[in-house]
């Protein structure tokens, strides 16, 4: 089976780097090719990397609370760049404060994400979903 390429990174002005390194390690371990953009990634950087590497999915992390502001418009930019229907996954601490995740999830799905994950989601869940979303 062909190796799938995943873009990972932490969006916006967020410097939380630990989880990012662990996600990259775990996804590689699970058989994916990982292009890890690190922290403080702009929407444009995700898209450029996905285009350059012919990526199969983009995994956005956001830990610092500004996720709602930073993720807005990413799906539209993907469509405009020709990355039609590319799986967009997002997880971390997506909003400021403890909020009902069903509400938060709705906001991110409306922004065009394929999947949004609550705090505490296991790596195994993300890996299983990525395998399903990137199956041809």
């Amino acid at each position, binding site marked *: 089976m062909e190796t799938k390429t995943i873009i990972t990174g932490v969006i916006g002005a967020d*410097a939380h780097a630990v989880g990012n390194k662990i996600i990259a390690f775990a996804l590689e371990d699970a058989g994916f090719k990982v292009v890890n953009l690190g922290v403080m990634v702009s929407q444009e950087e995700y898209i450029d990397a996905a285009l350059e590497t012919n990526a199969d999915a983009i995994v956005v992390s956001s830990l610092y609370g500004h996720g*709602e*502001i930073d993720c807005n418009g990413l799906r539209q930019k993907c469509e405009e760049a020709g990355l039609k229907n590319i799986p967009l996954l997002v997880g971390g601490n997506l909003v*400021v404060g403890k909020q009902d995740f069903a509400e938060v999830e709705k906001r991110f799905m409306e922004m065009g994400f394929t999947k949004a994950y609550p*705090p505490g989601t296991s790596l195994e869940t993300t890996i299983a979903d990525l395998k399903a979303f990137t199956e041809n």
Partner: protein
Amino acid sequence: MEIKNQKLSNDDFFAERKEVLQQWPTGKDVDFDEAVAYQKSIPAKKRFGVKLEQAVKDGTTLIQPRAGVALYKEHIELLKYLEDEGEADLLPTTIDSYTRLNRYKEAQVGIDKSFETGRSMLNGFPALNYGVHICREVTSALKSPVQVRHGTPDARLLTEISIAGGFTSYEGGGISYNIPYSKNFSIEHTIAHWQYTDRLIGLYEEAGVSINREPFGPLTGTLVPPCISNAVAVIEAVLAATQGVKDVTVGYGQCGNLIQDVAAIRSLESMTRKYLDQFSFTDVRISTVFHQWMGGFPQDESKSFGVISWGAAAAVLAKATKVIVKTPHEAVGIPTKEANAAGLKASKQLASMLQQQSFCDMPAVIAEAEIIMAEMTCILNKVEELGKGDWAKGTVLAFEAGVLDIPFAPSKYNAGKMMPARDNNGAIRILSCGNIPLSNELVLFHKQKLDERAAYENRAVSFQMVVDDVYAIGKGFLVGRPNGVK
């Protein structure tokens, strides 16, 4: 760009200041002489350094939260709640992440969206967008001293506005607010920016206004060996004192093994005093800060209280001057004011209950402190050697060489070769040294500790141990055991 560990000349400083004050419209409200007069009007009981000095004399451990929201009226309400209901001894104003990266337009977007939605869309207080007068509304509304807390590589204009705005303490440093908080800022640039901040504080000192400074101890807050974060703290204290700072709080982030944590605070304090005195800064006052566990927290709030209280206990038993408190909402990020107050009260209970007890003279603590001090000496000697006596130059070269190397840092100027892991008792040890210049004896000490763990867990020493350690506390443990091992 050439940096030196030398007090900035008035000519150089004031030339730069002209540019800095023009970086954003709110800079035009800063007037040094007027700000000095305003600071002098702040009563002693509301001055951060005065309260710290008293705590050092009394041997008490003060409690302080982190807190900041987008809208200033709500921010004032929040801080009042934390000092009344939460019994906080010292107050913060935590700055939002856009401001920290000088992205003031986005900070404004955050303010506007917060008005629209009725909730804070920013993870902190955009003090620079608000300017001097609103900062004064904040600082004058409270009974306790207030400090700016952030993570800002270029904090020059923010410092100007904050001190003029009535804050009497200011966190940060050229290494500790670079390596964990940025990707692309060079060490030379941030050391230079923080020499500006420290020189400004030095000028306030010369005008008779004392402002407390606090380098950021925990760095990446993830399995950082005490010798590394302590060495950085000492360097930043020396660099700050060179610019005229007279009051420094040096910090450390909890690791979770009590003996190591107490030893880390004791060695931090004694080595800071030793090096400041060596450089003739004998009039610089020192205090210490212990940060409650900075890594991943359990989702369950009751279990979170366990982690919070353990940090509070360790801080008091180490006789730290203050403790920065976490909250039961830590696993989801920014807490409600109720959750923040709850973390404070749990910590206050321990700070007062354990006041008469100390672990400082335990033989195991003294032995661990000797090891940390020996390691710090190896690192600081190398920094001094690389810089040919100049600690600013030495720091730049040390990062290039990986002599200073912070685990899990986002900065591209950090080597990232050094890897830590917990030993069988949960103390942080060095799995791979990279280019940290420890003696052979010390390297062997760490290897033996980790080999002990490997034998117990029946697996090789490896990065998987580190990954397991990162998740461990969230799952209820200190050491990340593989499946089937207790």
